[in-house]
């Protein structure tokens, strides 16, 4: 049985330009905090579970929805499902969370939530994504991890 995508014809947007690496960033002696752009770079190329497009191209993630507080070690990412009844919202949020868990130093507390008012089950999805015990249990499910890895693997 082939499952049709929830949103068969999503809007597709231009990819942003690559980030330019500055000379200060290459200098080992310069203290260089992680910034929003760097976090965005970690998640912009995550693949959509249903379309051969990235989360950036679908505007599911945008740099303006990424927040970091280096002093408090807090990272907060809001993502915007392409349609309010997207059944993939939890999987997309989980992929973002897993990518950041793997890529960021462990001192960071990562929160991944749906942009306010953009999904019918916003509260339920956010609660699930915030429950680290359920995330830990989900990540022991090999099938699910495989799907997440496929989303995260950037071409």
């Amino acid at each position: 049985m082939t499952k049709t995508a929830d949103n068969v014809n999503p809007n597709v947007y231009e990819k942003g330009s690559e980030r330019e690496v500055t000379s200060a960033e290459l200098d080992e002696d310069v203290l260089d905090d992680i910034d929003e752009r760097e976090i965005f770079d970690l998640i912009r190329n995550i693949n959509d579970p249903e379309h051969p497009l990235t989360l950036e191209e679908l505007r599911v993630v945008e740099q303006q929805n990424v927040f970091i507080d280096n002093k408090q070690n807090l990272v907060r990412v809001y993502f915007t499902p392409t349609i309010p009844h997207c059944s993939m919202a939890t999987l997309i949020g989980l992929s973002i969370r897993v990518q950041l868990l793997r890529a960021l130093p462990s001192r960071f507390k990562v929160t991944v939530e749906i942009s306010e008012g953009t999904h019918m089950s916003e509260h339920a999805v956010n609660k699930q994504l915030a429950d680290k015990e359920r995330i830990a249990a989900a990540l022991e499910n090999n099938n699910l991890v495989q799907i997440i890895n496929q989303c995260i693997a950037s071409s």
Partner: protein
Amino acid sequence: MAKLEMLQTLTGHKGIVWNASWHPHGKMFASCGEDKIIKLWNKEGEKWVMKTVLVDGHQRTIREVAWSPCGNFLASASFDGTTAIWDKKSGQFECNATLEGHENEVKSVAWSPSGQLLATCGRDKSVWVWEVAGDDEYVCEAVLNAHNQDVKKVAWHPSSDVLASASYDNTVKLYKEDQLDSDWACMATLHSHESTVWGLAFDKTGKRLATCSDDKTVKIWQEYNADNQEGVIVADRDSIWKCVCTLSGYHTRCIYDIAWCHTSGLIATASGDDIIRVFKEADNSDPNAPQFDLICTKLNAHSRDVNCVKWNPSGNQELISCSDDGEIKIWKLIED
């Protein structure tokens, strides 16, 4: 003010350490976590040393361990859907019984004060009560489906067969066996938390219950019997539970565990902000509207979320904690 002095940091688990449980005599404890291994630690002189490793009991994360009141049995609850019972009748610790029945992750396990009953709960929304039926034999007494979401924690009353459970559905429920038809039933639902309730702890009298939640508050609940002097109306039941105190504004992230010391009466919390906090009831506190003061804040107790806190049952003011950072720490509370 009081302070928490760190006595020792114990490493050895790989990944998240979810839980630790003191042996009833307080000179030994068990720990468990993501690495599917149970470690038993003993005190040798002044130092804690890892003495035994229990492997191959579970296929997935071990979420919680609990010693029986007699100290001869250790129960372990796992994401693999089973609860294992370990004992050392043969001279060394072995798994001699496995309790099966939950559909998926078992989140918590607890022994009743008599040691004759065991409770488990899990993501399948159910709470199971098991009776110790004989040597390595456990019989399911009841499957309680009162919650409508993932059940995070079970805890028994300190002196009677009353069970409490905490859930992702934001409520706490209390159960007991009906003496007439010997059916277990939910006797109270405690509504007040605004998000997942992660932890539960009775005080030594069992008349009070402390709960902690993802809503960043701790709540103290008090039982009122039918003949209470305060005039609380108790209709059609033996007693009701009321929230008599909410500790808010102290925690900045989810509170994963709470421990109420039966010797000192102090309450400790484990939080996602990496902090261990200790609260003490004020001297002139009104029992019907108690006041609890924060007497200790241990910043950066761990480098990541604190998952568990437990007071040493011997009453020596020792506290154990474990964390996502893979470490277990032993603390001593020093009051002045």
